[in-house]
Structure formats: C-alpha cells, structure tokens
C-alpha cells in the first residue's frame, strides 16, 4: 500500500524540477551548439564599441530582419568597451564554463570515489594518512587555495581543472567512504568472500557500484559550485586568459564600465551564471530526493 503512494510521489516532478531540468538542458544545448548559434566571433572585436542592447520594443522587428537576412545582425546584448559582442560571448562562455566545471568534476569523482573505496575497504596506515590529508585539504578555503594553485601552475584551463579536482576530490572521497564502511559489514560481502572472490573483485564489483550513488547526486550539486568557482577565479584574474569568453572575466571587464552607466557587459553573464548554477542545484536536489537517503 505504501509502495503505491511512494511511486505516485516519484512520478510527478514538481514545477521547480522541470524548471531545473529545462535550464540544465538549455545550458548543455548552448555549450554543444554555440558555434552555430552565435552571430559574431566572440574573440573578434567589431567597430561598434560600447553599443547598448536594442530596446525590448525593437526586438520583434529586429528579429524578423535577422531571419529574412535584411541588414546586419543586431548586438542583442550590446557590445563591450573593446567592441566584442556580449551576446555571442555569453553563449560561447557556456561552453568554456561547462567544460571546465564538468572536467573538474569528472576528474574529482574518479579520484575521490576510487580513493574512497580503497580507504573504506582496506583500512591501514596508508589509507588513514590519505584520509587525514584529505581532511586537511577540505579545511582550506576552496577559493583562495584554487587561486594560489592556479597562480603557481599557470593560467591554463588544464591547470584550473586540476586545481579544482584536487579540491573537490575529498568531498567524493568522504561520501564514498561513508557508504563503503556501511557496506563492508553487509552479509553479501562476506558471502562473496566465502564464494572465493578476490578482495579486489569484491571492491570493484560489489562495493563500488553500491557506494557510488551519493557521489553521483553530489556531482550535480558540485557542478554548480564549480561553475561559480571558475567564474570567480576569472573574475579575480586567476582564470582562463582573456579574450577566451568566460562569464567571470566578462563580468570583471564589464565592471570597469559600470560607473559609466554601461550595465550590459556585466549583467548578461551575471544572469547566465545565476540561472545555470540554480538549474544544477535544483537537479542535484531532485536526484537526492529521489535516490538519496
């Protein structure tokens, strides 16, 4: 009887959930297809410097013009002080930010989960040391540490990914280890051992698949944070090098123009960050509610 009730509850996702899923889908779509969607080269300056976006009332007619190919494509979000098209850059930056955040998370899940399985299943002095080290890492303020690491290693996106993986791996390590500790005393692990499975075989075939769930839920939440961190690093000048389009650095360059009343170069990437992070956070929350404990 209760099963029926639970199923019903799971079947109907709330409005919020659909909004979250929608945002994430759009973000992924933009990241994949941005070269075909953007009207201007995001790194090539136009002669129109600091053009404000057209007023909303003019958008329908401009849109029509663009479709029939009559006249130049308007700068929907205006241009910045160097004459770069904000619309094209905001879209293109989805790709930059998503790739960095995703890669960093994939790397940290791989490292964190495998170390988590090892440290939870084989408990000895080495895994204890590993655990303490990871605790130590987690106690550093993420942003500052990432900034220092990138500054030391050099500002390339590979280094940013590595620095972030280094900082996020302990989250997955902890999560996985907690699961493994509960799993290792379960009867089916003992049964597998009695049936002649090797310890490595048990860890890989029984422990890992049963322990990975919470990490996959965390994955979605952490992507949001990672986007925020990527943008934050660029904002303070420790991220990807300009003119690579990136939301954080766009906000930073736009910020210098804010005093002159040019709000558009910062506002649009700002909105993009908030919406994307919100979308991933909602999705993480949904996954947690449905599959988490």
């Amino acid at each position: 009887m209760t099963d029926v009730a639970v199923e019903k509850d799971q079947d109907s996702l709330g409005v919020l959930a659909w909004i979250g899923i929608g945002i994430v889908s759009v973000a992924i779509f933009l990241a994949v297809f941005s070269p075909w969607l953007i009207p201007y080269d995001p790194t090539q300056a136009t002669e129109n410097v600091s053009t404000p976006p057209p007023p909303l009332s003019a958008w329908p007619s401009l849109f029509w013009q663009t479709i029939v190919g009559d006249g130049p494509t308007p700068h929907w979000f205006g241009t910045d002080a160097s004459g770069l098209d904000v619309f094209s850059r905001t879209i293109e930056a989805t790709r930059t930010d998503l790739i960095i955040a995703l890669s960093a998370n994939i790397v940290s899940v791989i490292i964190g989960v495998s170390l988590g399985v090892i440290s939870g299943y084989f408990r000895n002095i080495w895994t204890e040391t590993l655990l303490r080290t990871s605790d130590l890492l987690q106690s550093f303020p993420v942003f500052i540490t990432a900034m220092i690491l990138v500054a030391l290693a050099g500002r390339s996106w590979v280094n940013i990914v590595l620095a972030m993986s280094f900082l996020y791996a302990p989250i997955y390590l902890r999560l996985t280890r907690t699961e493994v500790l509960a799993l290792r005393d379960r009867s089916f692990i003992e049964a597998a051992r009695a049936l002649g499975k090797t310890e490595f075989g048990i860890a890989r075939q029984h422990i890992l698949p049963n322990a990975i769930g919470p990490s996959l839920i965390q994955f979605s939440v952490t992507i949001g944070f990672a986007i925020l961190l990527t943008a934050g690093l660029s904002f303070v000048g420790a991220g990807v090098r300009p003119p690579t389009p990136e939301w954080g650095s766009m906000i930073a360059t736009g910020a210098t123009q804010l005093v002159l009343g040019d709000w558009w170069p910062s506002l649009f990437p700002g909105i993009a960050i908030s919406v994307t992070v919100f979308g991933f956070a909602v999705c993480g929350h949904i996954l947690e509610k449905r599959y988490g404990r």
Partner: protein
Amino acid sequence: MADSTNTVLSARGLSVQYANESPTLSDINMDIAAGEIVGLTGSSGSGKSTLAYALLGLTRRGAQITNGEIYFGRNDLLALSDVELEDIRGRDIALIVQNPRSALHPMYQVGRQISRVYQTHRGSGGAEAHQRAIEMLRLVGINDPERRADAFVHELSGGMAQRVLIALALSTSPKLLIADEPTSGLDVTVQAQFLDTMWETSRKTGTAMVLVTQEPGILANYCDRVIELDAGRVSKDVSASEFVSTSMLHTTQATSSGQGEGQNRAPLLKVEGLRKTFPLRGTKKVVQAVDDMSLSLFAGESVGLVGESGSGKSTVGRCLLKLLDSDAGKITFDGQDLGVVSGEALRRVRQRIQIVQQDPYDSFDPRWTIEKSLLDPLEIHQIVPPTEARAAIEEGLKRVSVDASVLGRRPKDLSAGILQRVAIARALLMKPDFLVLDEPTSMLAPQDRHIILDVLKRLRTELGLSYLLISHDLTSVASACDRVVVMYLGQVVEQGPTTEIFEKPVHPYTKALIGAHLEENPKTRRVDRTDRVDLEGEIPSPIDLPVGCYLATRCPQATEACDKERQVLSSFSSHHDVRCMRAGQLELDKAS
C-alpha cells in the same frame, strides 16, 4: 449484546478497509471470555495485527473500520466518542507492542511511567501510584523493584524492558490485554520468562489476553484458544490442543543419526582451543566472544550449535571459514591446518566450506539479479564449463525446490523463505563438503522454517552433506541434527547426541535452555512442568567475565567452589561432554 456475563469482549461483523482496496478484514466475529488467553495467528499479511488494533478501535493510517460492532461490557466501542474511548484504553484494555524499548519513554524513569498511567486512569495520589508501580514491577518478577523503578529504559535489558511493559499494561488491572508479537527478537530463555510472567499474571488477576503470534510453540504452550486468520477472515476458532493436532505441519522429533557412527575415521573438521576476542574501542579491554572452543565433525554428520545471542556461536561459524581470524587455537579441515593457508589455497579451501547467512536479503548484492549472483561464483572456481553454467544453476535451484523463474528477479522481489533457499543453492553450487548455516531460519516465518529444514534433511541424504547448524531455535536443531553443541558465553558447556541432550540434559544451562524450548505440543506445556530449571538474573557481560564458572552467578545449584574454579569440558559418558564439575553430583542428587 454480550451473550454471557463471562464474555469480556465480542466483535460482530468487524471489517477494516484501506481506501479503495479490498477489505483487510471482513466480517470478523469473535468472543473473548474473562481470564482466557486467546492466540491470534495467521501468516503475514493475514490481518492479525490489524485485528488486534481494531479491537481497541484503532487503525493504521489510511485504514478505516467500515463495519461491525465491538462490545466491551455493555458498550459498543465503535459508537463511543474519542474521549470515552481514551478512558477505556489503558484502563480496561491494555496493549503491549512489539518493541519494548521504543514503546517506553526514554526521558522518564520507568516507575514514573507506570504511576502516571495509574494516576490518569484511577485518579489516585502520587504516593499511592508510586507504591502501585513498585508492586507491579515486583509482580512481573523484577528484582529490587524499588531501585529499578528509578531506572531509565536505556539502563534495562531487552527482557526487563519487556517486563516493565507488562507491568505498565497491567497496572490498571485491565480486563483485557492485547499483545502484538511481544516476544519477537527475544532469546528463548527471555521469551520463556516473559511469557511465563504474562501467563501467571493473567491467571492471578483474571485478565483476558489476546496474544498475536506466528509461533506454533507459543500457541501450544500458553494459549487456551486459537483464532486463525486467513486473508482477513476467521478460518479457525478452536481450542489450542485441537489447533495443534489439526494444523501443525510437523511434529518435532529428534532424528536418529542416520549415518554410521564412524568414530574411527579422522574427523572432517576439528577445532581445538579456539579463542576469539574483539578489542573494545578506546580501552584496553576485550570482548571475549569465543573462549576455549573445541569441536569435531565427521563427514556426513550434522551438528547443531545452540546458545543465546552473545554466546559466540556465529563467531565460531565465521572463524571456520576464516572470515574472521582467530586469536588462538587450531582449526583442521580434512587434515589441512587452516591457520596457515592463505591466498589461492584459502580460496580453494573455502570452496569446500560454504556458509549460509542469517538475513537472506542482506546476503545477496541488491543490484544483481539472482542469475548473476549464482553465475558469478561458478565462474570464479570454474566448477562447470561456461556453456553448462546456466543448466547448472537451474539444476541447483531445483534441488532446493525453487522455480527457475526467479533467475531474472532481484533479491527484493523474492520472499525471505525463497531467497534463503536460493542462498542454500548458491552455497551448494560450490559442491562443498561442509556447510555452515548461521541462523538460517531466524528471519523466516514458521512455514518457511519447516521448508528450509526439510530441504536440509533431504540434501543430507541426497548429497551426504555435513553441516553445522547454528541456531537459537531448538526446534530446528532437534529436527535436523545428529549432535548438539551448547554454548554459553563463548564456551561449550555441553555436547552430545541430540536425543540425549534433549531428553537428559546435564549442565544447568542446558537444562534451562531446553526448559525454555516451547514444544509444539499442548500436552507438555512449559507452564505445567514442575521440574523446570530457571536461571536467575541477567547474562554476565562478556567484557568482565566471572573467574570461575561463567554460569555461577545465575545457577540455582552453584556452590562456593563454582565461583572460584574454572570449569573444564570433560567426558560425562561416551560421546557426551559437560563443562560442570558438579555434573556427576547433580545426577546423583537427582537419582536419590
């Protein structure tokens, strides 16, 4: 409407239904006479708990009493207002629920909880209520009730908490007591103590009782009448003796040892002086799980290892497979010292010794289908060529009478009984010489228990399998084992042939354990026996064990010497060993 003055409660046409579903209970008619103990039984899902609660006018969330009347005295309970009902519940009808620890409030002393109920329903003063609480605690057999009344629930053992619950329920002298599986999860001796207390109190106070249980032993020993439910309807309403004679699936009897007693052969498995302790975190102390355990088992023999929880019997089983490393002692399997094997050699030995665990749902990877769980070990040991693997597992399932259609399912989709048989099949696929069965039936309903035991007995004759059956359920051991080993606090206290142990136990602990065993026979009711040996007090902590005999603190026959002298397991008669220096003396006393 109560047709005789003797009737306490009668239900007429009672139906309970969850919204939009077929009725959980339909048209129940039953009467309960004063002072009568009625067993309410039926398979799981038959509606027995629902009925027990419905008698109080209660239902679970989402359910509704759709029809019927419940007459309690002159009142129809279902026609009363909530306020009037509240007054009757607790005062005239009391309830004992399954889990005693969670039923008591953790923040109040137990005595205070009893006196509060008494004050509420009897309107007495505080001092009088407190007096009553102490009186009730004494009545249910709690030593030193003045002090225990000030205890909190976490300071009490499970058995004692259960007794406090009876005291609480009986404090207002109710006319009817409803107990919903009150002994599930308790050890046999504690269960017997508890049921004795309940039975005696009911006889003393004339309280009628409804006892919800699936255990045939409890029905046979403590109930006057049995009502059986089947799919929400009363399928039987007969006296306990009639119920037992008509519906017990099996009569328990010790098996004669079918295999020739080959004492000249070398034993298949030999354990000598096994010791296992677990360090206690943060201290230098250790928990002594197994201490000086010796055991031998011959090919084709089945041995039962019995004892209460905490006696170390499961630890022994796990040491045999080297799933746990022992601290001391020697385990020899087929001439091979298990202490020195490791790696590949250990895996080969383990193929020959298999284990079936207690909780079937926990012993399969929840993500794997049954097919995968069965194929995987076959691949590891390459017992059959891959092309024949599928046929082999189907054959293996047939051996335990499970249909091959389960192969595509996952553990959670199967019933506990079937899954446990699949676990046996999985172990047997390894073609073991020896099987350790660690409480294989304790999580199962009585019917499933019988099936498992039948399967085991059949496999023994078919395959010549030897096994060690670890169990606290003496009925299982009596029916499926040639020999019995009794453990208490990590030591073997007595071992011998099944019939001898059950009919002529020597060690006082064995006597108490056998005495607590509820046979499915109303003619040998425990409450009627006069020669019962009951132990006093609680089981000592395995951290600070007594110096002398471990049982000395609880043994009715203990002398001063028992407190000081360590006991050794010595031969009492041929094939019968006892760890008690007074064993011979006790037998002489009995004879004279």
